[in-house]
């Protein structure tokens, strides 16, 4: 063994060859940013060409993406099962509506109250309050795991729905209440004020919200991706694989579980605000257990632990029922509401169920795992691809999903020496 190891002497020595930045560079590396820029440009000019339906769907998807990324940090990355996501969505949505809404109610009830603060304040406070709610729950979350945490968090959903139904002055009760338009420094994300035309296309609420959705979803995506690639992300992933190992390596397990719950519920809060803006009103049935389960479906379909997977899963689960509804008259078996046959929502759920079963059977990595497999196939001849080492005879098969790769019972080989 010719290499030597020296004790760390304060500042480490800089070696020009040291490069821990990433795997081998290939043409894909240069192609990727170009593709990303192209995709972004397409997204930015899309409102000039497509109908309002697609823009509204896009904003709903963006909101779901934010929420799914947040839940994925908790469930996929850290391994903490939570069914309370709908509750934190509700905290964000109701806070926004209450803080920025008008007193006296919009239409139905005179007893509604609102603080009439600027919508950006409502959004920020909504996110913070969802975070506070998560933080209040996190002492419980830090002490439970797996199905036990799932059951404990379930209670929050029922509490949330009950409060939504009964705290009428704030939530609007079982009828719900309408949501104030978003605006930023005098620019309204509504149909007018100011009137806006781009290249002769009127930019109304749907167009404006579309851009808001892109910005927020992108920010949520980048924050989570950076987080996972750095110190806290590594700690969270190790915590998922082995709490004992994480704590022995210096990770304060309970503090980290609390923090990830905080971050996850803040994501949910923002997602709740976006959901409220996208629907235009909030009602108790929008924040029931079904919503929590749909969010779990998103991250399982997309791929647990993958930020991009969560985004893909969110797009799939959110857009599918809307698209079915839109094209109910052309799709076989699917009918418009009120007619015989399968309604769009039900049809979409059959499809989710099927998709989840297929994903769990054939690609536990979800849509992200599917994409990864595709990518690795493309660059197999290159160096540095995982699993290329011919010496990995004792290890498990390459390409196995996360969590299945560590052998717990090593083969007992002869341990004689000399």
């Amino acid at each position, binding site marked *: 063994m010719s290499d030597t190891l020296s004790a760390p002497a304060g500042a480490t020595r800089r070696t020009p060859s040291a490069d821990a930045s990433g795997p081998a560079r290939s043409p894909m590396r240069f192609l990727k940013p170009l593709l990303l820029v192209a995709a972004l440009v397409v997204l930015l000019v899309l409102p000039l060409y497509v109908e309002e339906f697609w823009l509204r769907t896009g904003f709903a998807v963006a909101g779901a993406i934010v929420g799914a990324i947040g839940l994925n940090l908790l469930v996929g990355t850290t391994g903490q099962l939570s069914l309370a996501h709908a509750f934190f969505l509700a905290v964000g949505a109701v806070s926004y509506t209450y803080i920025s809404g008008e007193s006296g109610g919009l239409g139905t009830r005179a007893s509604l109250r609102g603080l009439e603060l600027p919508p950006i304040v409502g959004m920020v406070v909504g996110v913070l309050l969802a975070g506070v709610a998560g933080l209040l729950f996190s002492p419980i979350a830090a002490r439970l795991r797996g199905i036990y945490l799932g059951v404990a968090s379930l209670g929050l959903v029922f509490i949330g729905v009950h409060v939504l139904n009964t705290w009428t002055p704030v939530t609007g009760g079982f009828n719900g209440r309408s949501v104030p338009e978003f605006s930023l420094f005098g620019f309204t994300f509504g149909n007018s004020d100011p009137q806006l035309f781009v290249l002769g296309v009127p930019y109304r609420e749907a167009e404006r919200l579309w851009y808001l959705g892109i910005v927020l979803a992108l920010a949520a995506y980048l924050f989570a991706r950076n987080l996972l690639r750095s110190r806290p992300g590594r700690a969270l992933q190790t915590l998922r694989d082995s709490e004992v190992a994480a704590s*022995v390596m210096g990770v304060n397990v309970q503090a980290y579980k609390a923090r990830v719950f905080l971050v996850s519920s803040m994501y949910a809060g923002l997602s709740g605000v976006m959901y409220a803006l996208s629907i235009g009103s909030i009602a108790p049935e929008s924040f029931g257990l079904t919503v929590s389960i749909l969010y779990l479906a998103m991250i399982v379909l997309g791929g647990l632990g993958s930020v991009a997977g969560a985004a893909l899963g969110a797009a799939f689960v959110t857009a599918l029922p809307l698209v079915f509804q839109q094209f109910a008259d052309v799709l076989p078996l699917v009918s418009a509401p009120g007619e015989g046959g399968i309604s769009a929502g039900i049809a979409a759920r059959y499809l989710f169920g099927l998709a989840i079963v297929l994903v769990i059977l054939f690609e536990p990595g979800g849509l992200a795992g599917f994409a990864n497999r595709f990518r690795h196939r493309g660059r197999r001849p290159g160096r540095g691809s995982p699993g290329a080492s011919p010496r990995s*005879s*004792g290890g498990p098969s390459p390409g196995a999903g996360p969590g299945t790769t560590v052998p717990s*019972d090593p083969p007992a080989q002869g341990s004689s020496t000399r």
Partner: protein
Amino acid sequence: MSGAHRAAAGARDTTTRSDVPPVEVDGVSVAFGAIKALNDVSFTVAPGTIHAVIGPNGAGKSTLFNVLSGVYRATAGEVRFGDARLSAMRPFQIAGVGVARAFQNIALSGAQTVAENLMLGRHHLTKAGFLSSGLRLPRATREGRVHGERIREIAEFLDLGDKLHTPVGVLSYGDQKRVEVARALCIEPRLLLLDEPVAGMNAQETDRMADSIREIRAALGISVILVEHDMGMVMSLADRVTVLDFGRRIADGTPAQVQSDPEVIRAYLGSGTEDNPADAVAAAHTPEPTERQP
């Protein structure tokens, strides 16, 4: 291969770091209900030495390691490492005072790369939090870069330099064991706890690991506590050996002393009523392991 010779050789080429205090295990007991997994166990690890803890299955070796790393709380007694009372600290605090542990059953994150697993060892040496990492503030990225260089050094020292960006899950078993040790080294420990570092390895890998452990001690001047079943390795590597049986300490001394201790021979080979004691002593000297893992 005598322990005395090894100790002398160790003393010649080793400079013990001045900040490595002795480890004092003082009357430690651990009870699970009525079962005493450890019963009043005491021993001292001198700074800069390799100290082996051996014993038959169920002797309490793993329990002892779990007490040393804070995973289990001692029901009586305490463990001191200089000023730090390890027995009163939580695991992450113990890592913070420079006590690192490599697990017997590999406890790495299989989906993460070798570099990412090693970077976890730097957790207590780095500060980047959720906000600065998520926003990629300059101090977070700078921190990652600086520590990435040390990671590379440690990986190259354990012949893992070319595997830094390989997911741990696809590495061979021997490689994964060495990643375990490398990750523990990334803590920059003053005390290294190695839990069966060569279990399940073949002869060649075992030799390689033994060399690595000697080099670690020689280069870093740190203390090493070793739990191991491979007698040949223990006797050639350790400066001092503590023997446990049924949770009690039955012997403590140099490898040569321990090998000829009648109590130790009885623990490993049975009461020996029908055996010629000389045969038993000879058997204890052979490098073949006297017991196997289940």
